């Protein structure tokens, strides 16, 4: 069993403004990059339920030149720093993606 976290060099999570969070995954080689893309584990259909979101709130954009995949989601909970928020910078919201199994 291979988990997504084992296939990436960098897995960063960050605000893209106070109402969205963006995840950048960087892969060490094209084999891992293509494997993850082909597996479809990062499609909006698969990612949206992990964050309790509608599919339309999730965008996945591959950036082949640098073996990167960007996923941008609407914030699933409160906006950055408002009452009830858990992560003002959005820097630790990648947890639900880390252990996705990649065939």
């Amino acid at each position, binding site marked *: 069993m291979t988990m997504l976290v084992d296939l990436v060099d960098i897995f960063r999570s960050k605000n893209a403004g*106070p109402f969205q969070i963006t995840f950048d995954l960087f892969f060490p080689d094209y084999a891992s990059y293509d494997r993850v893309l082909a597996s479809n584990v990062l499609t909006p259909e698969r990612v949206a339920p992990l964050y309790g979101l509608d599919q339309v709130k999730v965008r996945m954009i591959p*950036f082949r030149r*640098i073996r990167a995949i960007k996923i941008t989601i609407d914030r699933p909970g409160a906006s*950055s720093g408002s009452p009830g928020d858990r992560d003002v910078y959005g820097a630790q919201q990648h947890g*639900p993606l880390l252990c996705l199994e990649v065939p």
Partner: protein
Amino acid sequence: MDELRILSLTGNLGYGYRLKSLHNGIAAQPHMIGSDNGSTDAGPYYLGSGDQLTKPFQVKRDLKPALIEARRLGVPLIVGSAGTAGGEPHLQVVLGILCEIARAESLHFRAAAIHAEIPKSLVRDALAGGRVSPLPGVPELSSETLDRTERIVGQMGTEPFEAALEGGAEVIIAGRSCDTAIYTAMPNQHGFDLGLAFHMAKIMECGAQCALPLAANDSILGTLRRDHFLVQPLDAGRTVTPESVAAHSMYEQGNPFEIVEPGGKVDLTAAEYDQVDPRTVRVSGSRWVPNSKYTVKLEGAALCGYATVAMAGSRDPAILANLPIIEQEARRMADGNLEGVLEPGSYSLNIRVYGRDAVLGPLEPKPQPLGHEVGLLLEAIAATQDEADVALALLRSSVLHCPFPGRKTTAGNLAFPFSPSDIRVGPVYEFSVYHLLDTEQPLELFPVEFFTV
């Protein structure tokens, strides 16, 4: 002019940079020195309250050497998004620091302050005229939300900076700005390609964050030419690669292939990144796509109440096993004790369990305590600070003494690291406005005020 050299001091004025990096940059004879000083990243508190994330001491430490060098070279020094949120109190604090340094160093120059607070009445009229639209993930703006908004700023584009430069400003301190506008105003004045200029600005505005090893707290040099630009970190111990620069182009951006600006966007789909020497990357192919509409991003913060918090730990296995019961029971006890004291619905109580699901909450895929101890963050938010204090005090004592099945540690469930245990957080805000304003006045919204130091 074939080439424009721009020194970006640091990702946020106050985060620091190496003096050696500044001096390396000065040796390259830059045409301007710039620094961003703001962001929404640290949350709505700064915009709402007028406070700054980078404290005056930090800003002074970073501004002073740069100001001295800029005046010695006779090139403009430009600071954008002054004082974190770029509202009027934020701008005034940074202007005060500028004048203090100038006085102490006997520096004399022509300066410009650019204001970025947007009057509520202007937003209200625009809202009525259908010229305010939400950004992705943001609700429509209502006039009720506008009423309770404390302060609104607009992110200025290059136009006010250009007006300040044309007016002879040698130092510009601007309120809330597009990070890129700080570095694109001068290139635009000299007719450089806007796609390249904005792309270079986007990479430079975070300091050496695009370098290896990365550092938002260090300086970088951008060299803009007619058909490409060069990026080079100014600390000899750092480098850049095509990958590190391309990767930074997508940092904190929803889409890796476009940079949205008030008057259009930069299309990065054809951008090329090449290594020209071991520490320099050349970028070309970024394309400016103008938009028929000019839109200014508005940011506003509204007061939600006042918070008081307490932190504590638990390392008793029975407590860890019964946390859901304790949370539920303690809330019930606190609510009961607050009956007749605070209006139900006028306050909220939160318990966050670090070591279990504090970071992800209901999204946590493994919602079990992982170790032999957990940290609890107790939080009360109410309409006044005194009310938050009372609510938190009752929540704290309720968790401390909460009964649960199999309890053996009957003297207390919590280990408090501090006395006093309760910490007043102060006012709590939310981003109530994060919308685009259609406008035909990119300049008039941001008054430029000239003065002599």
